[in-house]
């Protein structure tokens, strides 16, 4: 009897702390406390400032590893010709281009004898709330000769209020974007809404490291090295300070996995890369 009372109390306090932590994500800008309405504007400023050096900084901060992580993400997606894919917070197009390349090479190899006109065209939508990031992406597309390619569609939009129809996407990816969203649960709900039945959800995000010693080294690198790199290369220490702080404030792997499940997804799994520096969460809408 006493045991059951105890569990009910801990459940209640767990619900309260869960809601409190969601609220705390919505009102945290790195380690600072901000008003909920302010957060997206502050994040917007960060990305407007870093847009032009975003790709270079990624290479420097991760020693080029971010490329491998994105390859792994796209590998897990298993893109196919004719798919409708949505890449959210994908501004500069890293993930979108990889999906495009994957689809087009498979298509070219496998479909030499098939009437290509009968196949629906692949559509990769790149959605980002920041126009500067999208412009960098569009420019990169133009540099690759993909300026007029109908497969890549660039849209400015909010992850919490997507402008795509229900059950319209075969795949949804968000790489290094979800920790910048004010209300994670809204972004997850929207992801669930736009995916078709059988659609895959994939999230690549900086996450939490638990391994002793490595954790301390990683913290040292994050807080001592990265803001200095930001100042040196992007001329913007504060934005990169925000970046490393926002990683610490983001829910750890297990809790984020639970949030994905709460949004309605099934088969929620995650894979840690580099000891948890990065995690790929995946799920399916059934």
């Amino acid at each position, binding site marked *: 009897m006493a045991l059951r009372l105890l569990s009910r109390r801990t459940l209640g306090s767990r619900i309260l702390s869960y809601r409190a932590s969601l609220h705390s994500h919505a009102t945290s800008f790195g380690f600072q406390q901000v008003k909920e309405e302010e957060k997206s504007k502050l994040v917007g400023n960060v990305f407007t400032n870093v847009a032009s050096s975003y790709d270079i900084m990624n290479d420097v901060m991760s020693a080029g590893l971010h490329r491998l992580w994105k390859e792994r993400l796209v590998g897990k997606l298993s893109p196919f010709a004719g798919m409708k894919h949505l890449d959210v917070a994908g501004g500069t197009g890293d993930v979108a281009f990889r999906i495009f390349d994957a689809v087009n090479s498979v298509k070219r190899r496998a479909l030499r004898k098939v009437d290509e006109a009968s196949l629906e065209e692949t*559509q990769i*939508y790149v959605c980002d*709330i920041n*126009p500067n990031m*999208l*412009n960098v992406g*569009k*420019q990169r597309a*133009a540099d690759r000769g993909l*300026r*007029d390619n*109908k497969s890549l*569609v*660039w*849209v*400015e*939009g*909010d992850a919490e*209020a*997507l*402008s*795509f*129809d*229900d059950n*319209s996407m075969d795949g949804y990816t968000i790489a290094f974007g979800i920790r910048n969203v004010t209300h994670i649960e809204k972004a997850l709900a929207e992801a669930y809404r736009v995916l078709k039945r059988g659609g895959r959800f994939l999230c690549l995000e900086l996450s939490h490291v638990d391994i002793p010693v490595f954790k301390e080294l990683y913290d040292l690198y994050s807080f001592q090295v990265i803001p200095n790199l930001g100042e040196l290369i992007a001329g913007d220490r504060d934005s990169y300070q925000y970046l490393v702080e926002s990683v610490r404030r983001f829910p750890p792997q297990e809790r984020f996995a639970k949030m994905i499940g709460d949004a309605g997804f099934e088969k929620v799994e995650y894979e840690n890369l580099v000891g948890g520096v990065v995690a790929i969460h995946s799920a399916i809408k059934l």
Partner: protein
Amino acid sequence: MVRLSRVMLKEAGNAIDKTLSEILVCPLSKQPLRVCEKTKSLVSDTIGVSFPIKDGIPCLVPKDGKILEEDGDASKAS
């Protein structure tokens, strides 16, 4: 150089406006959008809001929407 490429981007954008209206929905009402060639925008008739298209990129962030007057003139959203 940058200015030239921006002009090129703009021209490329005009061609795909029609395809966009078939795929995108209003982020607020989730209802279909209508392309308005005159104002270069996507209109959500259900709630009377128009979203701009800049450099071929539709701006469908909810706070960027402009509430339309009854006679069709665009005015700044509050």
